[in-house]
């Protein structure tokens, strides 16, 4: 930064105090009760934005540790996005910094926060341009087209089952699918590893349902590929009925 003007040095002392009222000195000539208005408003805004997005993470951590973590977010993190909506995503970025708030966080904590944030982000994501898709019919011969809001999620912990009374003791590989349906509701679907792989294949390559399932049967070295294909088609049909698959392309 270029050399600061006098008013900027004052501003910097002002914001330093807002970021860390417990350790930064008060400003000379500024009444404490007036400064306290800013200290409270600025912190509470941030705290409420974060807390609203992570109701489970907040409860799992407990009131006191959650408060301390948010104070550290205020003190140590430099937010770079002007949109209020981005605060939860920036909080996750903060959690991934070395020793956020010098706290020992539970090993599943970042995954849990990410899972809670995804719901918000999928709800508010701009609508992608929906590809041309026939309402369709044959998911075996056509290339299934997924809802543009769909995301595959892969966690080391069963994040969707975590609660204050159910804190995971060990990792449990977990695959989920999230999407926004036609009514703008966010839905999560728990997947098994095979279905997760099937959807990944269809996302990554231009394959028909049958081609993807044949590949999958090969990968699994299944003795009866036809049974995998049949079973897989019924899964795709189910995803279509839920609105995850919105049609097919030739």
């Amino acid at each position, binding site marked *: 930064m270029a050399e600061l003007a006098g008013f900027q040095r004052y501003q910097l002392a002002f914001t330093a105090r807002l*970021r860390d009222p417990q350790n930064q000195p008060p400003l000379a000539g500024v*009444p404490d009760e007036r*400064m306290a208005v800013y200290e409270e408003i600025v912190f509470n805004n941030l705290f409420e934005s974060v807390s609203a997005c992570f109701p489970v993470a907040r409860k799992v951590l407990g009131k006191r540790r959650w408060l301390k973590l948010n104070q550290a977010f205020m003190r140590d993190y430099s937010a770079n996005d002007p949109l209020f909506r981005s605060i939860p995503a920036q909080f996750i970025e903060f959690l991934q910094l070395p020793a956020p708030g010098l706290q020992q966080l539970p090993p599943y904590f970042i995954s849990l926060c990410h899972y809670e944030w995804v719901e918000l982000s999928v709800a508010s994501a701009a609508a992608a341009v929906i590809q041309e898709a026939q309402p369709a019919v044959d998911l075996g011969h056509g290339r299934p087209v997924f809802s543009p809001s769909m995301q595959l999620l892969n966690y080391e912990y069963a994040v969707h089952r975590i609660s204050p009374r159910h804190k995971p003791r060990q990792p449990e590989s977990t695959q989920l699918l999230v999407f926004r349906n036609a009514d703008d509701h966010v839905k999560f679907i728990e997947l098994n590893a095979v279905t997760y792989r099937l959807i990944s294949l269809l996302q990554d390559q231009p394959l028909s349902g049958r081609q993807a399932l044949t590949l999958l049967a090969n990968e699994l070295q299944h003795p009866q590929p036809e049974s995998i294909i049949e079973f897989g088609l019924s899964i795709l049909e189910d995803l279509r009925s839920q609105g995850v698959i919105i049609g097919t392309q030739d």
Partner: protein
Amino acid sequence: MATISQIQGTGLGLKRELIPQIQSLYGQEQLANIHFVEIAPENWISAGSKAARQLDWFVERYPVVCHGLCLSLGGLSPLNVDFLQQVRAFLHQYKIPVYTEHLSYCTDGFKGRQGYLYDLLPIPFTEEAVHYVAQRIRQTQDILGQRIGVENASFYVAAPISEMSEIDFINAVITEADCLLHLDINNIYVNSVNFGFDPHAFLRHIPGERIIYSHMAGHYRQTPNLLVDTHGENVIDPVWDLLEDAYRLFGAFPTLLERDNNIPPLGVLMHEIDKIADYQSKASQRSTAFQHAAELMTG
């Protein structure tokens, strides 16, 4: 497309909570005094398909103005040009003719990034700050290709290093930046109590011809000497008196009600909007010279 000359009469700050009520009562006499609505671009830029559909609905029916929160005109970090480009595209996409911001700052450049603090912090009123802020307003106007309005902000801490009064600071910035004034009537009152000055005297030094529109709002009385600008209460009588005085001085200018917290049903807000309309109808028309000046200035 809405033009600046369509920003007239009385308006309402658009909150998500109010949208269903406005949509269901649209066209009815009860809402006749909503002539324009205001949104914060920070809440609507890339806000998803549902928000986009809602905004389309409003743009088709009302002139819309944008009132920003996070540009940080007095901030320590470089002006966020990427964000301003987004604002520019947003204004263009929704054909929004007006963009205003606060005479405040919300970034401190912490760790070489913007360092958003997401609130309106007070700029010390110094000579250097005048030039700094005016230059950033000019830069903003260059990027947007239009004049912006700047709002007199409410605040709670007077910087001991200030070299001039708030009104002198506002006038100096506006003159040097050659921008418009977004006059917040409630903020004049809040600051007059918080810092002990005469709000009516303040008003007399306002450059009336540069007012693009004004805000009315309520505040929270924390102590007799400390008002907090919460936008969560009804407008109080001394603020109505100030509005009346302002109309008497400058003629009736467009005025919008802000209510951001503790939001009552729309019908209750309409009483306050109707009351603004009432004050406007009793005031003289704004001189056409003022109107022309405002229009030319957005050129």
